[in-house]
């Protein structure tokens, strides 16, 4: 899919002057953070943190990591909002789907416990 021939080279370069030429340090920094966060979420499991705290930590680390990757590595932080919204809004539909399926699974589980659960 190499395709941007029709774009005058200057346009392309101009395009990315903001996006691309920030220092390597930033990458190393983010890289480091991702390591730290991954380690943290690993430790959550290692020390058998349980219950809501576990969920909170795991999801938090997950979101932050995702944010870093999308924001910095994928340069979304430097894209114009028009693109940012176009990409970030549709997944709301997925969230609805997830919410519904959580309720649905609970209901199924409830029915199964009630009717097929441990016999009296």
């Amino acid at each position, binding site marked *: 899919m190499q395709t941007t021939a029709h*774009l005058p080279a200057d346009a*392309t370069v101009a395009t990315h002057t903001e996006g691309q030429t920030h220092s390597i340090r930033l990458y190393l920094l983010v890289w480091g953070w991702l*390591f730290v966060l991954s380690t943290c979420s690993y430790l959550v499991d290692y020390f058998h943190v349980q219950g809501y705290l576990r969920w909170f930590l795991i999801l938090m*680390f997950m979101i932050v990591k995702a944010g870093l990757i999308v924001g910095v590595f994928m340069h979304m932080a430097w894209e114009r*909002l*028009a693109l940012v919204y176009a*990409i970030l809004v549709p997944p709301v539909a997925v969230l609805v789907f997830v919410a519904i399926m959580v309720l649905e699974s609970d209901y199924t589980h409830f029915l199964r416990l009630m009717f097929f659960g441990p016999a009296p």
Partner: protein
Amino acid sequence: MAETTLSGPRSEHLPPDGWEGVAADWSSDQRAFKNVSWGKAMMWIFLLSDTFVFSCFLIGYMTARMSTLAPWPNPSEVFALHIGGESVPLILIAIMTFILISSSGTMAMAVNFGYRGDRVKTAVFMLITAAFGATFVGMQAFEWTKLISEGVRPWGNPWGAPQFGSSFFMITGFHGTHVTIGVIFLLIIARKVLRGDFDTGRRGFFTSRKGNYEIVEIMGLYWHFVDLVWVFIFALFYLW
């Protein structure tokens, strides 16, 4: 109708970003994403679609896990390795995670050097990324063999809900496929870079169009996405 005709901004000074920026961009002519090339836009939208694919896989897994009465095998034990006598939980997965993250880092470097027009460095970093990717797939393969040898099958396993094996093989399998495809393309593009296609403006094989270093960034988008997916799998499958 006059109100529907906002004029496109000039290339030199794009309109201010923020809400009015969004409005201006979307209502301008020719393109909605002002400084985004066709290839990049396409990759972004493809990734959006792919997001839905992986989301649905994870939703399926979640539903199976939440609605079964059978006990769900505890990942942190299932994926533990015996190192020097005592077993370390999830260790292999942790290492895989670090490897994939590193590959993302190197990929970012590659992109960066690409735009500095540094042919060799770009190619080298892409090859390193590919190497990391290959390692990841290798370890995934090891993981699979380990589980299979312990009697985990897509249709059942010794410890509980059969959906455990099903979801595991399906989700990691699909992710692994994405990684593999990524590796292949990394190699192809690295070769092009090294050969200097993008400096000499050599024509592509099929499309016969010229490429430029931006393809490296597009490749990067894909690769980082693969990493992103793993972040979710790691949290939702292994740590739940």
